[in-house]
């Protein structure tokens, strides 16, 4: 591992070579280029471990600098030893037996590492990771290793803090009970992964290293990879600490009670960041204090909301506001100070101990570090990153390239996690003090390049980050606009890479990817639907009535929850539990479960499918009252304002645990409180059915996209969004229910795991997600299926991923992930891929998904058939995902923005940043504009109207509105736009004639002229909708509909249609006109001879003569026959092969007929006919056509007679007449004078000049060519290199021809004359 990096950093191997090497090993597209650097060949066994090692290396190197935001470890397998089935439980098993046991393992070092029980949790950070594990609404059960740890903490490395830590953890870990009765005040937070174990393994390794130095095998990568898992577990969010357990108190106590044994060595170990990702002792991971405030330079004087640590949800927020805050904060600050004191003292102590530093590649802990960490005030001094101060550029570039390639090749488990990390680097805040001091010497001496500190200062970090960002530009440019803005304005990027800065700026300016929260659907009950809800659906009256009652109870519960759940002290189980269970009992009594499950599911979809219901961290639900007051128009503004106040402070990292938010909590809690097996079963059935239905539905509904489908496309996107979000919601609840029985608080031990796996391997999965997944890949609608499968799987229990079935599912997902390299291609649009990658990346980080998965699974196992042959426009290839949907599905992507925003907030003041001060002004009047309220009221009225009507009415109205709106647009396109385009065509033609102007400019001008008229579209559109909408509604609704209802329905349909159509038109009409005009213009340009269409085209499109029966031979036939004649004339001929004169005469006659009937004629045919006939004439003139005259033998005797009667003259005459009369296009007669054709004449032994002369005269006579034209043709012929005698004859011929015409002699003797003169010439020669 390290060896590879070593080679890279010493510049012995290029980054690209390493990438190739990696690709060969792990990429699915292996064998493309197999040129592997020789130095890497020997290391080929290490490929698999390299990526985790690299990631770890980067984290470790930067650990000291990174104080902003949560740590961002990715999940990597704990060690190679785990590759074969070693799991967390095993590790724990290892604990139990102690490290001795582990020694005998094959991979002793690693095992020992993982089984060690020492804990760095000394650091408050670690403690916090533990505490974070408990949180009410967190789904994944936190699993503390506490018991085993206690039992095994051996004195040798049994730091007291370990005990303390685990104790604390155990005290607050969520038990099954807590899971079942979630604490409403506890917010959903990211809990620490595998708690104690994490820190244990990390520091344990150090200890082992110290102890087992003699084993001398901990040199490099093997052990390195372990630290990954360690770090990763620490990735917990800053947890919210509820008032009921103040864990840090314990912590503090323990610190005092258990002073570290062998402090020197212990702290030495500690001093290196212990290969954990976040060594910051007093960092963001603090449970109670506001850790961020120590590190980000956020002024302490912010609103409580703003200061609240990440991981806060609204309830928590409220809870704190409600009074917990002060006490918590107060006591914790106190504690924190205490701890800091200790920390510092220890650090000082440690600094003086020499051993650790030399042994370990890790960053030495410096006093300054502690200082910077501890003093909020100081952190204000953000170091100004300076490109000039970057050291070891070359290595950083190599690393950046390698790292970027890993990201680009999907070799990292989560792309966005890496991006987050990079942004953390970008926004890292070193203290200015750091600049000056150089601890470089410590590492400088080391010959080990990979151990050198490359990221020791902010400048290097930023340099590296900017490099990576540059490589990842394409992904970044697809992020939402706000993020782009922050990046574009980032001063560090600007100073480190002006080109990237410029690119980002342009991307920001051209971006349309504004992401805003949609208006949450107002909570409404599911209306009564006769098909399913009326009496006939129930076995008895009693059941029917009981169900009615249950319905009422359910809504009562819901209302109560809505009103009260945010209040402090309100406990779901306590208040509602019994009511729910009573209701369930009734259900069981009457077997109404299926009805209720359906209602439950419908209500769930209705309430939660909106992005807010499903969202997690992208923002909290705005107060409904505020919304009512402001109206939806101002919502986004409000949202942005709110974000600016709140968001930067709550950075939780890009990988939150799955959690239920908003209304979803009600449904989850309801299920838990009800605890009804029957109900759950029915609900599962119902969810499965609905999921299957939705998963298939969109495919059928997916429409073609012909030229005029812009609007349909929009609708399609919307429909897709709705279906996708619904699917995700349903799948989440399905996953919750399916895995609920198996949920454990802790990781099962190995034995337990094995037996559980053996047991559960026998059961059938409720929903065959594997099949669906495969299908989706095959049918290319993965973009719909994968997101919901991810939701489903995010709720797996700890054992499920080890089951054969789910293992396959994960393998397949992993394979898809690897294959889905980001690029814009036909198969799948960029954002579609990005969404899939984002959700998959998130899934791989979900706590219950085993970390071994990503790096150890052999991707090539399962054959993935990407069926590329289908040319179907499958869902995957349609750009259905936009940033809005991406961020709705993956709210954690917003973390990137928050991180950047927090940097601005922190650095702005000092660096003259970009924060626009928000100056609150009193609202002009709290009452919003009347129109807004009115509109809102109108909308509510409409809702109410529909609610009381049968659902078919609503469907009808919506359908009519949709169709009429769409038709309206089509109508406008066909009428108004078409008219405008026609006018544009005329205008363009005029202008084109004028000058050869710049086409683009011309187009622009003409379009600008038309835009004004385009405004008419709205007027016409409105008229159209007004006319058509009501008509359609009237026809479609039952005759019995009351007049008032009908009227309202008509009005609503019309309004909706108008809104839809005019909305689209006003946004797109200009673009549409431009597009159409441009297309027309391009067509105009393509057609050659454009300016002449009036004359030429008309001439060509001549009609057949009156009464034409279209019985003439086909042009193709004639061409074919003439071709045959030419063939024979040109030769080679068979013996005695001749052309029948009569037949040829007849052919020319048919030619004439064909040319006259225009029906089957096309320009190419006619052109070819013209050309062929000229060739034929040339061949005739040069007497090359072997004619058989049938009855009349050629009369060679009398020359005069021959001139008059020779069949050739007849044929030539016929041709002349055809050219003159029948062709609709100019005949290329000048071909006759081409060198080739004249050469035919020249080749003839006895030259037949009279035929040629006859032809010339004929041309003039038939007015086919002018005399001067012929003259010039003849003249140019003389230029060519002919035999001298021929030249003379030619000279003579032209003289004769010219004199003939100049003298205007009678036509009787010129022929004679010519013959005479020619004769003399021949004689002379």
């Amino acid at each position, binding site marked *: 591992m390290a060896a590879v990096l070593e080679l890279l950093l010493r510049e012995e191997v290029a980054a690209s070579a390493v990438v190739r090497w990696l690709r060969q090993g792990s990429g699915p597209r292996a064998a493309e280029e197999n040129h592997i650097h020789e130095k890497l060949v020997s290391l080929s066994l290490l490929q698999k471990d390299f990526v985790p090692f690299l990631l770890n290396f980067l984290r470790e190197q930067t650990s000291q600098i990174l104080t902003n935001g949560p740590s961002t470890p990715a999940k990597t397998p704990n060690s190679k030893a785990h590759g074969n089935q070693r799991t967390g439980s095993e590790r724990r098993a290892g604990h139990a037996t102690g490290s001795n046991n582990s020694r005998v393992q094959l991979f002793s070092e690693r095992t020992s590492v993982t089984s060690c029980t020492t804990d760095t949790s000394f650091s408050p950070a670690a403690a916090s990771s533990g505490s974070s594990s408990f949180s009410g609404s967190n789904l994944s059960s936190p699993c503390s290793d506490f018991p085993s740890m206690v039992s095994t903490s051996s004195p040798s490395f049994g730091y007291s803090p370990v005990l303390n830590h685990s104790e604390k953890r155990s005290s607050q870990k969520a038990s099954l009970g807590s899971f079942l009765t979630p604490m409403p005040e506890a917010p959903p937070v990211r809990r620490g992964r595998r708690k104690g174990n994490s820190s244990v393994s990390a520091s344990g390794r150090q200890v082992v290293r110290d102890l087992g130095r003699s084993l001398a095998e901990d040199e490099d990568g093997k052990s390195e990879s372990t630290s990954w898992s360690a770090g990763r577990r620490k990735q917990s969010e800053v947890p919210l600490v509820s008032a009921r357990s103040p864990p840090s108190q314990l912590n503090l106590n323990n610190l005092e009670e258990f002073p570290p044994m062998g402090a020197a060595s212990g702290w030495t170990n500690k001093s290196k960041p212990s290969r954990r990702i976040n060594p910051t002792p007093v960092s963001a991971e603090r449970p109670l204090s506001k850790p961020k405030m120590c590190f980000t330079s956020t002024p302490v004087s912010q609103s409580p909301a703003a200061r609240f640590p990440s991981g806060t949800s609204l309830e928590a927020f409220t809870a704190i506001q409600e009074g917990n805050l002060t006490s918590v904060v107060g006591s914790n600050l106190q504690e924190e100070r205490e701890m800091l004191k200790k920390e510092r003292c220890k650090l000082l102590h440690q600094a003086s101990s020499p051993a650790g530093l030399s042994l370990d590649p890790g960053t030495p802990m410096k006093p300054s570090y502690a200082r910077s960490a501890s003093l909020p005030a100081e952190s204000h001094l953000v170091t100004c990153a300076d490109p000039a101060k970057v050291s070891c550029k070359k290595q950083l570039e190599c690393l950046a390239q390698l790292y970027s390639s890993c990201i680009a090749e999907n070799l990292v488990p989560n792309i966005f996690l890496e991006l987050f990390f990079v942004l953390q680097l970008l926004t890292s805040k070193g203290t200015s003090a750091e600049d000056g001091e150089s601890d470089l010497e410590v590492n400088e001496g080391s010959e080990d390049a990979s151990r050198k500190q490359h990221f020791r200062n902010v400048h290097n970090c930023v340099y590296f980050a900017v490099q990576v960002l540059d490589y990842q530009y394409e992904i970044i440019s697809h992020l939402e606009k706000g993020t782009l803005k922050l990046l574009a304005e980032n001063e560090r990027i600007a100073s480190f890479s002006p080109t990237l800065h410029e690119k980002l700026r342009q991307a920001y300016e051209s971006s349309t990817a504004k992401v805003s929260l949609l208006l949450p659907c107002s909570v409404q009950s599911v209306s009564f639907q006769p098909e399913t809800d009326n009496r006939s659906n129930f076995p008895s009256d009693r059941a029917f009535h009981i169900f009615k009652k249950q319905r009422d109870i359910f809504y009562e519960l819901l209302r109560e929850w809505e009103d009260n759940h945010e209040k402090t002290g309100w406990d779901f189980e306590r208040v509602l539990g019994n009511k729910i269970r009573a209701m369930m009992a009734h259900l069981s009594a009457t077997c109404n479960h299926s009805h209720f499950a359906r209602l439950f599911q419908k209500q769930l979809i209705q309430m939660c499918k909106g992005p807010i219901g499903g969202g997690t961290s992208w923002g909290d639900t705005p107060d409904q009252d505020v919304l009512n007051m402001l109206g939806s128009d101002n919502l986004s503004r409000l949202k942005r304002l709110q974000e600016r106040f709140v968001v930067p402070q709550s950075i939780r990292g890009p990988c939150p645990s799955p959690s239920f938010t908003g209304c979803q909590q009600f449904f989850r809690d309801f299920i838990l409180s009800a605890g009804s097996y029957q109900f759950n079963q029915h609900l599962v059935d119902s969810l499965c059915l609905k999921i299957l239905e939705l998963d298939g539905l969109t495919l059928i509904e997916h429409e073609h996209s012909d*030229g005029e489908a812009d609007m349909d496309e929009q609708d399609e996107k919307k429909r897709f969004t709705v279906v996708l979000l619904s699917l995700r919601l349903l799948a989440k609840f399905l996953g919750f229910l399916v895995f609920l029985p198996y949920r454990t608080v802790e990781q099962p031990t190995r034995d337990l795991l094995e037996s559980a796996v053996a047991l559960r391997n026998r059961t059938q999965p409720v929903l065959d997600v594997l099949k669906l997944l495969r299908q989706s890949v095959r049918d290319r609608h993965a973009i719909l299926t994968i997101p919901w499968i991810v939701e489903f799987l995010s709720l797996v229990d700890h054992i499920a991923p080890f089951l054969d079935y789910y293992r396959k599912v994960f393998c397949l997902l992993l394979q898809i992930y690897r294959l889905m390299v980001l690029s814009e291609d036909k198969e799948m649009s960029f954002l579609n891929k990005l969404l899939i990658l984002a959700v998959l990346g998130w899934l791989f980080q979900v706590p219950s998904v085993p970390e071994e998965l990503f790096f150890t699974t052999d991707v090539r196992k399962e054959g993935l058939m990407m069926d590329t042959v289908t040319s179907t426009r499958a869902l995957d290839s349609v750009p259905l995902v936009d940033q809005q949907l991406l961020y709705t599905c993956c709210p954690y992507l917003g973390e990137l923005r928050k991180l950047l925003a927090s940097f601005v907030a922190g650095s702005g003041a000092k660096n003259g940043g970009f924060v626009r001060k928000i100056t609150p002004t009193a609202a002009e009047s709290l009452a919003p504009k009347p129109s807004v309220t009115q509109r809102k009221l109108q909308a509510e009225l409409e809702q109410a109207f529909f609610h009381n009507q049968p659902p078919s009415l609503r469907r009808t109205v919506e359908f009519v509105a949709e169709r009429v709106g769409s038709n309206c647009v089509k109508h406008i396109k066909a009428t108004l736009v078409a008219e405008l385009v026609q006018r544009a065509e005329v205008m363009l033609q005029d202008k084109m004639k004028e000058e050869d102007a710049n086409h683009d400019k011309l187009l622009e001008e003409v379009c600008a002229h038309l835009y004004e008229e385009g405004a008419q579209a709205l007027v016409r559109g409105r008229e159209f909708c007004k006319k058509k909408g009501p008509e359609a509604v009237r026809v479609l609704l039952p005759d019995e509909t009351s007049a008032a209802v009908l009227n309202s329905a008509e009005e609503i349909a019309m309004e909706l249609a108008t809104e839809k159509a005019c909305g689209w038109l006003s946004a797109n009409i200009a673009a549409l006109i431009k597009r159409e005009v441009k297309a027309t213009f391009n067509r105009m340009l393509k057609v050659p001879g454009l300016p002449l269409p009036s004359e030429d085209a008309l001439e060509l499109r001549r009609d057949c003569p009156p009464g034409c029966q279209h019985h003439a031979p086909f042009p193709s036939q004639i061409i*074919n026959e003439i071709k045959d004649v030419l063939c024979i004339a040109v030769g*080679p001929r068979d013996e005695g092969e001749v052309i029948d004169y009569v037949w040829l005469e007849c052919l020319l006659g048919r030619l004439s007929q064909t040319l006259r009937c225009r029906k089957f004629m096309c320009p190419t*045919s006619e052109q*070819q006919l013209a050309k062929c006939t000229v060739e034929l004439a040339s061949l005739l003139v040069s007497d090359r056509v072997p004619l058989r005259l049938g009855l009349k033998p050629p009369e060679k005797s009398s020359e005069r007679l021959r001139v008059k009667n020779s069949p050739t003259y007849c044929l030539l005459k016929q041709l002349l007449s055809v050219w003159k009369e029948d062709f609709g296009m100019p005949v290329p007669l000048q071909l006759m004078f081409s060198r080739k054709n004249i050469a035919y004449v020249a080749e003839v032994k006895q030259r037949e000049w009279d035929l040629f002369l006859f032809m010339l005269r004929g041309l003039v006579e038939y007015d086919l060519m002018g005399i001067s034209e012929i003259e010039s043709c003849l003249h140019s012929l003389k230029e060519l290199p002919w035999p001298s005698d021929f030249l003379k004859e030619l000279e003579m011929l032209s003289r004769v021809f010219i004199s003939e015409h100049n003298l205007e002699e009678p036509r009787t003797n010129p022929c004679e004359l010519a013959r005479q003169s020619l004769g003399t010439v021949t004689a002379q020669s």
Partner: protein
Amino acid sequence: MKLSKAQYDEIAQFLGQVQPTRQSLRKLKQKFPSQSQSTLLSIFSQEYQKQVKRTHAKHHTAEAVETYYQRYLNGVMKNAAAPVLLELANEVNFAPSLMARIVLERFLQEQEQAIPSKTLINSMLRDPSQIPDGVLANQVYQCTVNDCCYGPLVDCIKHAIGHEHEVLLREMLLEKNLSFIAEDQLRAKGYDKTPDFILEVPVAVEGHIIHWIESKASFGDESSHQAYLQDQFWSYWNRQDTKDTKDCTRYKNGRYKNGIEDELYGGIQRRR
């Protein structure tokens, strides 16, 4: 015209190794007097094209080109009037037009010291008068005129046939009162690949639903039919929002389908 698979195979077999010349065609006509000239020509052309596709590469190696060119030069040196190029083509079993192209290209290359543009060569082949060398012009013209499978003349004939049959088809559709959208309309709507006609209202013929009709002026043998579908129509087929779309490609010269002939619109073949 109907043509059974067996008949087709017989013709194809006969065409095994003949030159694409008038003489061959005449022999073909004598052998299969019951088939129309255009059918035979069409099959001939297609079969020959297959053959050329197989051997194309070997005639274009640098050595081959050089040999041909030298042989041509020697030939015309001896007798400029003899059909040097045509005989050369026949001798090496290559289409005369293509041979003419090779030699012309080589000739121009020598003259201009640069690789001539495709457009220039095409234009010279279309009108050999433009060729600066008189002898070569004659030779080339002889080749293109005599070639009954390749060359500008043949191309033009094919194009003409295509056009004519489209007109015929349109006529028939109008006669049968079938509403359709024609190719130019489709193109105006922005379709990239278009069949000749899309029926606005599909019709059923012999139990099959016909959605679109494509008139092909060539003989519809199995492989070319497949290729057409691949290149042109599957994409279209998929854009039709119907699951049971059937296509109908109409071949001028008849096509077989496992020896069973389907007739559509007065003797013109259809598929499926």
